[in-house]
């Protein structure tokens, strides 16, 4: 247990222990023992493994697509790429949002070649076949040329191929398996916990994609533990605690608590308010140095006090949140590819995507969302894509939307992708040795294996559905109690 946990528990008032939608981490549950085996390196570079992942995971699980708010008007569409597929999400002229594979049913051409737009009807640029925004066929160009259509164009067979969509947190999610369990069931207990943030009220202010020179699972692993803070991000331990933190495995998903507004116990001087600590207190937590003269390790108590005092006036949902949520970062990852890192006022969403053909590359999407006061016009973000080998200075890429110190932290994370990818291929690498603070990685890779070997299926009514709540199921391996 980290020192800060004892400090919080010793000062926790009984009145703060009422039941919240998001269950507090503290007092922490023991980190579950799910094994000690090494994790092989081949899964990160094998093309055969990549093909299995596509077949058994990417095409069978729920993925984040686009923001609902980007489809405000009838006819508005966004495209999104996942692996070898491209999808269109569109608000039909009947008001309903739908998803389709971005493929012309005539010759297989990609229908939409741009990322956003608004259309009366989707028109293939190749021969001019057209579809309504509900996916139904509108027109075949010169149908008299097709002997197949002598008895009439079979409109029912020629609609755009749908992809299943569902809505949660202001996002349009999609699943390539039409028989998949519902999104609500899939997100399970952790999804329900995060509803306390009212994500649909958040506005997307920045969206950047980094093509990294490593397998997508390296990117997931990079963000699902904080054990690396001391070595890779020495700044982070100056204004937060990532050393020995609470972690919970909840079904196939997981969460952890990164403490903010404190100084890590790995440092000797936890009390002194250094310039860096003061700056982060102000920019991340909104408390000026003139308002707080206490210990740098106890800023988080002041944060809770400030937010509780304003909870009746603010548009932020402080009232629905436990004290931990007010001050610290709740970090949730939904298998396989979505991470939510949250404060009440703002959050980042990480989305991990495989490269279409190369297991040595991936796409890391970084979304910044802010809960602006009601009535704020929707910010017009620009989606920027940073190709491999053209890595920007992250602090410059995020100028105006993300703290430069934290942007630099992200750059440090990205810097490991290529070196990890090379290292796991080495004859000298014998598999990853993971500690308890890395248990989310072990859990993640075990889940990958279970999907691939067929132990888990997300088909509706399947007998081998993966657990999505903390409740232990028959034969379940996921225990937190």
């Amino acid at each position, binding site marked *: 247990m980290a020192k800060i946990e004892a400090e919080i528990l010793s000062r926790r008032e009984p009145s703060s222990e009422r039941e919240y939608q998001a269950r507090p981490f503290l007092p922490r549950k023991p980190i579950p023992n799910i094994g000690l085996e090494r994790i092989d390196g081949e899964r990160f570079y094998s093309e055969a493994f990549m093909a299995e992942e596509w077949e058994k995971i990417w095409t069978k699980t729920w993925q984040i697509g686009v923001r609902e708010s980007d489809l405000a008007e009838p*006819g508005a569409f966004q495209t999104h790429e996942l692996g070898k597929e491209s999808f269109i999400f569109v608000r039909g002229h009947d008001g309903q949002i739908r998803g389709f594979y971005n493929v012309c049913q005539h010759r297989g051409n990609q229908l939409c*070649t*741009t990322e*956003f737009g608004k*259309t009366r009807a989707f028109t293939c*640029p190749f021969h001019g076949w057209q579809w309504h925004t509900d996916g139904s066929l509108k027109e075949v160009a010169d149908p008299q040329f097709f002997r197949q259509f002598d008895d009439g164009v079979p409109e029912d067979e020629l609609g755009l191929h749908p992809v299943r969509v569902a809505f949660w947190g202001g996002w349009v999610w999609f699943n390539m398996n039409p028989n998949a369990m519902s999104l609500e069931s899939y997100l399970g207990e952790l999804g329900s916990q995060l509803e306390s943030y009212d994500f649909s009220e958040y506005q997307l202010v920045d969206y950047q994609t980094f093509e990294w020179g490593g397998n997508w699972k390296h990117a997931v692993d990079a963000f699902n533990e904080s054990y690396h803070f001391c070595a890779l991000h020495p700044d982070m331990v100056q204004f937060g605690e990532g050393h020995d933190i609470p972690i919970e495995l909840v079904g196939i998903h997981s969460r952890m608590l990164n403490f903010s507004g404190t100084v890590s116990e790995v440092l000797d001087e936890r009390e002194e308010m250094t310039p860096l600590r003061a700056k982060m207190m102000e920019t991340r937590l909104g408390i000026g140095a003139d308002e707080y003269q206490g210990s740098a390790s106890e800023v988080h108590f002041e944060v809770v006090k400030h937010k509780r005092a304003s909870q009746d006036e603010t548009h932020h949902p402080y009232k629905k949140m436990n004290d931990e949520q007010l001050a610290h970062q709740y970090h949730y990852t939904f298998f396989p590819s979505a991470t939510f890192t949250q404060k009440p006022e703002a959050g980042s969403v990480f989305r991990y995507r495989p490269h279409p053909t190369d297991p040595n590359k991936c796409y890391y999407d970084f979304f910044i969302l802010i809960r602006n006061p009601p009535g704020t016009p929707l910010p017009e973000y620009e989606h920027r894509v940073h190709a491999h080998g053209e890595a920007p200075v992250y602090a410059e890429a995020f100028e105006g939307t993300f703290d430069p110190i934290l942007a630099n932290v992200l750059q440090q994370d990205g810097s490991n992708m290529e070196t990890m990818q090379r290292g796991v291929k080495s004859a000298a690498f014998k598999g990853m040795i993971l500690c308890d603070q890395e248990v989310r990685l072990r859990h993640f890779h075990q889940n990958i294996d279970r999907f691939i070997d067929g132990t888990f299926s997300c088909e509706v009514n399947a007998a081998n559905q993966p657990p999505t709540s903390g409740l232990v199921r028959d034969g379940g391996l996921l225990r937190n109690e």
Partner: protein
Amino acid sequence: MVGFYGMSDGDQFARVAGLEELPDRGFIQVAVGEYSVLLAKLDDGVYATENQCSHANSTLDDGRFRLGRITCPLHGLIFDFRTGQVMGGSLTMVGLRTFDTKVQEEQVYVRNEPNEPKFGIMKR
């Protein structure tokens, strides 16, 4: 032509709207002589493009306006509203025709003849 005032031959501007008629985000459609023109107020001025895609001649007035760009509702091409240049899609390298604008005493004037379209893809 009624409504135009001449600065010199070939350099005539028509009043098309009051500045307050232009939305903060979006555009309005106006007529300039025989041309249908889209007019938008961006953070550095008022801009005008022809309401006709340079690829397949679709009208653009029910396209999407975002980030100072207009999208074609037919094939989704994206054009920079300031310069008319292509920014997305590979169906044409030819930009939209733009019109010079002037704002005087809160009134918007548009030149009666378009500029030649710019060629090539504009990078963000």
